[in-house]
């Protein structure tokens, strides 16, 4: 049985983790490599590293960080943030990333997804979609969630799949940061529409929220950041809870 995946997400700026981390006694909680190792040891199924470095100049350090992460952990990981070309992806894959996520650049230039899939294989290409519910309609947001487009999230997800994306990372802008639960409605619509795995993101606050998104939608994975980083939920406890509630996870 294919297991549902639990994915901690780390925001990186200038090579350091951004959000405070207090879940485990790390020598240096700002060091993404140490944090990644701690999560891998806790049986996290995958990790996502999002580079939120402001400038392209400073972003060059990201590839060397990716290389260090690849050397340190024994589970798959995705990297994203500001990726807009085959060359960007080539550098990250060569550094050892398993997958890359593309967001705004792919929305502005959908052919990018196809070019990346042709070059590296669909399994490497994650289409990250930020969706916001506005007057009853889930619309795509770009530029780190700051710009609302007129395109429906469901429509864009289906198009990204057909263009060659191998996975969809769906973040609900409405739920993100609220700790009030995942947006199960849009997660469900998109998971039912596309025939590739969907990662639900945004809104995790309790272990029940994870159970809910897996029970009520056909998403393949759930992603969260702060509840893991601040130790509010420990990955092993979460997996035990999900298993007890008949959600198949890797223990």
């Amino acid at each position, binding site marked *: 049985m294919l297991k549902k995946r639990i994915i901690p997400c780390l925001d990186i700026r200038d090579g350091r983790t951004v959000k405070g981390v207090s879940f485990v006694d790390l020598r240096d909680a700002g060091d993404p490599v140490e944090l990644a190792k701690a999560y891998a040891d806790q049986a996290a199924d995958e990790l996502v590293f999002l580079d939120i470095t402001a400038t392209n100049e400073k972003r060059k350090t990201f590839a060397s960080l990716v290389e260090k992460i690849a050397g340190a952990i*024994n589970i798959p990981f995705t990297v994203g943030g500001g990726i807009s070309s085959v060359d960007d992806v080539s550098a990250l894959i060569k550094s050892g990333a398993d997958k890359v996520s593309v967001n705004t650049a792919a929305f502005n230039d959908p052919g990018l997804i196809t070019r990346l899939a042709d070059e590296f294989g669909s399994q490497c290409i994650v289409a990250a979609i930020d969706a916001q519910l506005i007057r009853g309609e889930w619309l795509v947001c770009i530029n780190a969630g700051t710009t609302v487009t007129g395109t429906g999230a469901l429509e864009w997800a289906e198009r990204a799949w057909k263009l060659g994306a191998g996975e969809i990372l769906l973040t609900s802008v409405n739920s993100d940061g609220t700790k009030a639960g995942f947006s199960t409605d849009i997660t469900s619509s998109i998971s039912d529409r596309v025939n590739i795995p969907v990662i639900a993101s945004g809104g995790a606050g309790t272990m029940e929220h994870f159970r809910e998104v897996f029970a009520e939608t056909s998403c393949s994975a759930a992603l969260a950041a702060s509840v893991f980083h601040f130790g509010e939920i420990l990955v092993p406890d979460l997996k035990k809870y999900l298993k007890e509630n008949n959600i198949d996870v890797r223990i």
Partner: protein
Amino acid sequence: MIVILKYNSGNVMSVRVALQRLGYTSVISDDPDIISKADRIIIPGVGEARSAMNYLRERNLDSLIVSLKQPVLGICLGLQLLCSYSEEGDTRCLGVFDASVSRFPEGAMVPHMGWNDFVSLNGDPLLRGVVVTDDVYYVHSYYAGVNQFTTAVCDYCLPFSAAMRKDNFFATQFHPEKSAGKGELILKNFLEL
């Protein structure tokens, strides 16, 4: 000396660093002399069958690989290349395993991506210490069905070969280098055969 076969495949580095974590150094090479002298050869895989076979044929590595007598481990696409034929790009492959590789049927969610288990069939030493409740990491859209060389079966839409073996040739459809502690155990089993 452990050689990781160099070809147009994505995860050569992943295998190399996984071996490093286990304390083994390795050489990434497509040089026939170096490959012939290796104690162990790993054929990694994330890529496309036709272009991979073209790369091997252009360098006459296809005939070399099938003649190897030392332990060889094919991973993911590596397993598929060791079969005789792949639907991916309508490709004639190496033919160590007389088996063919197909795409998952229409309607299946592809790639089969994530952690899944397998059932061992006949005590393959490669899989020693890994039991049915353990999960390993898969990411693939093509599969080799269950055949005479199958040593472990995974079920995803249909049963397929999670691992195969013929003499000195071992292969896994999953990625031991990405499969946490159990994957490390499998790599170690291979290196200590």
